[in-house]
């Protein structure tokens, strides 16, 4: 038989198919959508962190020229509710906020009133005319003090500000600690940060009173979930609510959260006022009103043998949840279940307390707890190596789970999907080897010594991480061949914020259906296009939607082969699919996808040449029985779903060489190497882009990004001048090495990668600086971010310490 010439684009760095419009400025981000007659929303937000509201006077705002309506909790009808607890868990003393504050405010930035006006300028003017009389209450912004007796309570009925306390145990940690030859205990801290996508949140709503349909454009990662919520809240049938996320300018987890107050208030105003309403969040509002994340304080202890084998781990941490906990304990849960990293450590005890503080809510930001876990365990592993006098690379090797040990389960640790942590595959030692070779660690040690002799301080930092990805519950895929153009339409229920789903899902479908990637049109983020699914978060789109699209494409492929075999009068095994057609192998006989799709759709009217062959009098049409047989459907179309058995675990190793200038306290990252393994890569260039983007955000968290509040809970740096997001000059180039250890859990063998880049960076930088400044007798570095001021304090403390013996 002649050789098959089907091509596969899976694994190719195919250029993205939706870039040209974006490059020409033709994207449709929410505020780009022109809605004639739209009104604009602005909010009066609390200027006090914690207070009783004595009165709200909106009279002047209501009278202001150009203002159409002013809303407070008093006139929003059934919307005066507490938002749902999205991910319930028995450990939570749940508090969620109201769309508009009632009675009390709990953080600076909380929405008290909404103004709807002719334009945003006018609306902002009017918000400033609203007068709120506050009775300020005590606040405690420090999470360690917030849980102590006597600390001011954010919620009067939540003792010690503890929103949730949860303990998980795997194995027998008490036994491990009793058997330990050496224990290492450290305390580490990661500071508040925020996702800061360049497009702030945005929402526009239009109520069509003719069709009774609510149409909402929302810069969200969760269109289907938002639709479900809006349908519930507004008591509309789900088919009467359509949520569309057109282009979204970055999400990074911030846009997974629902509901933000505007997400219900803007549709409400659109319905009430009979005009479209837009709310375009501004940057200050994004800082004070959207969400933040990253503040955790870990006390982590390792029980080990003298050879560095870690027998057990105990970790107790505080997790800041802000004033409300609508997203439940997801971030803390992911941190606690990622705490043992890529190491065996069979016996684990991990406890966390989620703490209410009078600040904006904490919801997941890229990494969702994994960066914290990596920072804690890796700082501890470095400390252990140091105390035992062992090489830190070697200590890691001795503890890695080995390839033959997979699947490796941690009973008692339930991951974010509610299932036991179960590592499916990985080559952790190989990843470390690759880094060691790429960086030439042996040569570096000589270089470091020579530099020290010349008064220069070079250091090497190292971090190993794992990343649980690809959670359920499920996603769906829909594949259809359009009979007129022969192009392939693909849909899934989740959304895209720049990750290249439109290309990656096209590659998957194209491989099965045999067309060019450019001829696959992927439409996501529209509840009308596909109605089943969850959302984009937790590095799951490639795994869950990717496999769902793959499964649907497989069905479509079978349909195509069956129909083509009939049309060409050959056996299916004689056919191959490529270049948008079915070919008899070894010949030029073929039928195009358009023809196949047309032929399988019995037609009355011939729209074009191909359609003629499907009409009732054409020779190829069936003449016995119904044109469409029982159980058959017209055209080429398939829908299927993928529900992962549990998360699939990606991993990686990062390392860097830095130079510290101990006088200016500045850091130069001279080399940064990243080995990452996300299983089979659908599009390596897109994967690299995700990893590099994550690393840049990690750099932000390692050096620059720190949301700060003063003692009274006032945000101190709620803008881009004072909250420092890195420019190109602050992010190094990165050398990336791909490892592909397939996932055994799904047909495509893929693992998620969206969050990979940011997990390890804090630890890499902290350990590199520590390694560089060791000769100066500094104390170990236990906190990020590391500003020059922080480096200075570390060095100054070292100078004050009495010299070592």
């Amino acid at each position, binding site marked *: 038989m002649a050789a098959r010439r089907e091509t596969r684009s899976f694994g190719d760095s195919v250029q993205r198919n939706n870039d040209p419009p974006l490059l020409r400025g033709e994207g449709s981000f929410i505020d780009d959508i022109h809605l004639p007659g739209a009104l604009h929303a602005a909010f009066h937000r609390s200027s006090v962190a914690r207070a009783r509201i004595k009165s709200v006077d909106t009279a002047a705002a209501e009278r202001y020229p150009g203002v159409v309506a002013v809303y407070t909790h008093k006139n929003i009808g059934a919307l005066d509710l507490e938002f749902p607890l999205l991910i319930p868990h028995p450990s939570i003393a749940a508090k969620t906020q109201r769309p508009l504050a009632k009675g009390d405010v709990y953080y600076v930035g909380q929405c008290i009133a909404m103004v709807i006006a002719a334009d945003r300028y006018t609306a902002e003017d009017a918000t400033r005319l609203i007068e709120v009389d506050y009775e300020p209450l005590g606040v405690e912004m420090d999470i360690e003090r917030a849980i102590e007796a006597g600390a001011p309570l954010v919620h009067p009925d939540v003792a010690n500000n503890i929103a949730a306390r949860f303990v998980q145990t795997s194995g027998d940690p008490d036994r491990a600690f009793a058997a330990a030859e050496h224990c290492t205990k450290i305390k580490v801290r990661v500071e508040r940060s925020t996702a800061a996508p360049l497009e702030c949140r945005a929402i526009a709503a239009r109520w069509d009173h003719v069709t009774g349909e609510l149409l909402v454009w929302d810069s969200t990662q969760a269109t289907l979930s938002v639709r479900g919520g809006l349908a519930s809240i507004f008591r509309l049938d789900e088919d009467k609510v359509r949520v569309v996320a057109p282009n979204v300018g970055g999400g990074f987890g911030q846009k997974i959260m629902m509901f933000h107050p505007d997400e219900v208030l803007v549709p409400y105003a659109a319905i009430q006022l009979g005009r479209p309403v837009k709310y375009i969040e501004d*940057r200050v509002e994004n800082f004070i009103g959207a969400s933040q994340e990253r503040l955790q304080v870990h006390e982590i202890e390792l029980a080990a043998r003298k050879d560095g084998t870690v027998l057990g781990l105990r970790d107790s941490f505080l997790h800041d949840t802000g004033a409300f906990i609508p997203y439940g304990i997801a971030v803390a849960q992911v941190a606690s279940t990622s705490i043992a990293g890529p190491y065996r450590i069979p016996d684990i005890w991990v406890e966390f307390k989620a703490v209410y503080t009078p600040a904006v809510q904490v919801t997941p930001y890229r990494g969702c707890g994994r960066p914290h876990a990596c920072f804690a365990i890796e700082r501890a592993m470095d400390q252990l190596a140091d105390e035992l006098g062992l090489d830190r690379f070697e200590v890691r090797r001795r503890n890695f789970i080995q390839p033959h040990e997979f699947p490796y389960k941690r009973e008692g640790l339930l991951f974010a999907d509610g299932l036991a942590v179960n590592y499916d595959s990985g080559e952790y030692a190989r990843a470390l080897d690759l880094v060691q070779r790429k960086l030439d660690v042996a040569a570096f040690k000589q270089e470091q010594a020579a530099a020290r002799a010349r008064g220069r301080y070079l250091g090497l930092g190292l971090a190993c991480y794992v990343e649980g990805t690809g959670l359920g519950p499920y996603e769906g895929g829909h594949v259809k061949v359009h009979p007129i153009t022969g192009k392939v339409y693909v849909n899934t229920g989740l959304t895209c914020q720049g990750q290249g789903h439109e290309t990656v899902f096209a590659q998957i479908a194209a491989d099965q259906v045999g067309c060019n990637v450019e001829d696959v049109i992927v439409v996501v983020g529209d509840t009308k296009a596909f109605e089943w699914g969850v959302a984009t978060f937790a590095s799951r789109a490639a795994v869950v939607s990717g496999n769902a699209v793959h499964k649907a494409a497989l069905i479509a492929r079978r349909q195509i082969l069956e129909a083509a075999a009939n049309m060409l009068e050959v056996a299916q095994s004689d056919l191959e699919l490529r270049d948008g057609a079915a070919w008899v192998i070894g010949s030029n006989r073929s039928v195009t996808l358009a023809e196949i799709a047309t032929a399988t759709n019995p037609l009355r009217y011939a729209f074009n040449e191909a359609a003629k062959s499907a009409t009732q009098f054409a020779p190829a049409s069936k003449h016995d029985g119904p044109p469409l047989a029982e159980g058959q459907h017209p055209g080429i179309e398939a829908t299927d779903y993928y529900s992962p058995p549990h998360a699939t675990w990606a991993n990686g190793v990062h390392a860097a060489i830095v130079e510290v200038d101990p006088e200016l306290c500045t850091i130069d990252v001279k080399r940064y190497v990243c080995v990452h393994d996300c299983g089979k890569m659908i599009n390596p260039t897109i994967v690299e882009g995700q990893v590099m983007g994550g690393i840049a955000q990690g750099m932000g968290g390692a050096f620059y990004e720190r949301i700060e509040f003063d003692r009274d809970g006032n945000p101190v740096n709620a803008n881009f001048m004072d909250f*420092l997001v*890195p420019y190109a000059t602050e992010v190094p180039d990165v050398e990336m090495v791909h490892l592909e250890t397939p996932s055994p859990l799904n047909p495509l063998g893929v693992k998620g990668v969206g969050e990979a880049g940011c997990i390890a960076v804090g630890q890499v930088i902290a350990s590199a600086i520590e390694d560089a400044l060791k000769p100066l007798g500094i104390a170990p570095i236990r906190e990020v971010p590391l*500003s020059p001021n922080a480096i200075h304090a570390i060095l100054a403390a070292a100078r004050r310490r009495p010299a070592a013996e």
Partner: protein
Amino acid sequence: MKPALFQYVAPESLDAAITELAGDEGARPLAGGQSLIPTLNFRLAAPSKLVDLRKIEALRGIRVEGNVIRVGAMTRHRELELDEAAHRANPLIRDVLGNVAHIIVRNRGTIGGSLAHADASAELPCLLVATGGSVVARGPKGERTIAAEDFFHFHLTTALEQGEVLTEVRIPTLAPGTGYAFLEVARRHGDYALAGVCALVMVGSGGACTVARLAACGIAPKATRLIDAEKALVGVRADGSFEIAAQAARRYVTTGDDRNASTAFRQDLVATLVKRTVATAFSRVAR
């Protein structure tokens, strides 16, 4: 973040601008807008009137005349940065301007606007103080020249009175053979300095420093001459020690601990920056 409403005028003559400004206490001049407009968008400032200076020809132009470079106040940073004649006359200018924000901001921001804004951490005031420049201002009472050391009062406050417009900036040329350097530490490229030092060094025939001028930004409410450090450099050679000068510089740090830097850090920074800029300046002294 939209600004509050204001009246807007764009007069074509300096006198008209002065009249507008003098007649309305809430009126502010609008130059490049790179510092002013953010404050309006944040509603930290709400002037009743903006007097746009962009049409006033008299505020433009860069001329090297003798030992002074005369820069029209509305000259964009980028124009001065790229001006070859100005660069030949005083190469410190280009070094300093390269640290001011980013090119896109320097395209619009103006020399006069930045000096009138007088941020304590800004680089241009430091340049003007180090070189001993001056500004020319014109107001309802007429025209006056104000030396740099008298112009900057404290953070965001200058000697300008209501109704006065800064019309020209006068930057001295560097005498042949003068060594120069500027170095700052900022959180990110283009950010305001945690501390920055401008150094000018002149050397005698024996190789020892005869005159030094040092100024720092970011360490006090205004750009500050480090006079005791300058004195300590007289007689010092390129291969000598700058330690006394560096230590003397520390005394000029008056900024308290803030979120970006502790006083102790700024003290250490200014000492190090003095050493490094003086070393670089020495290396640039023409033989």
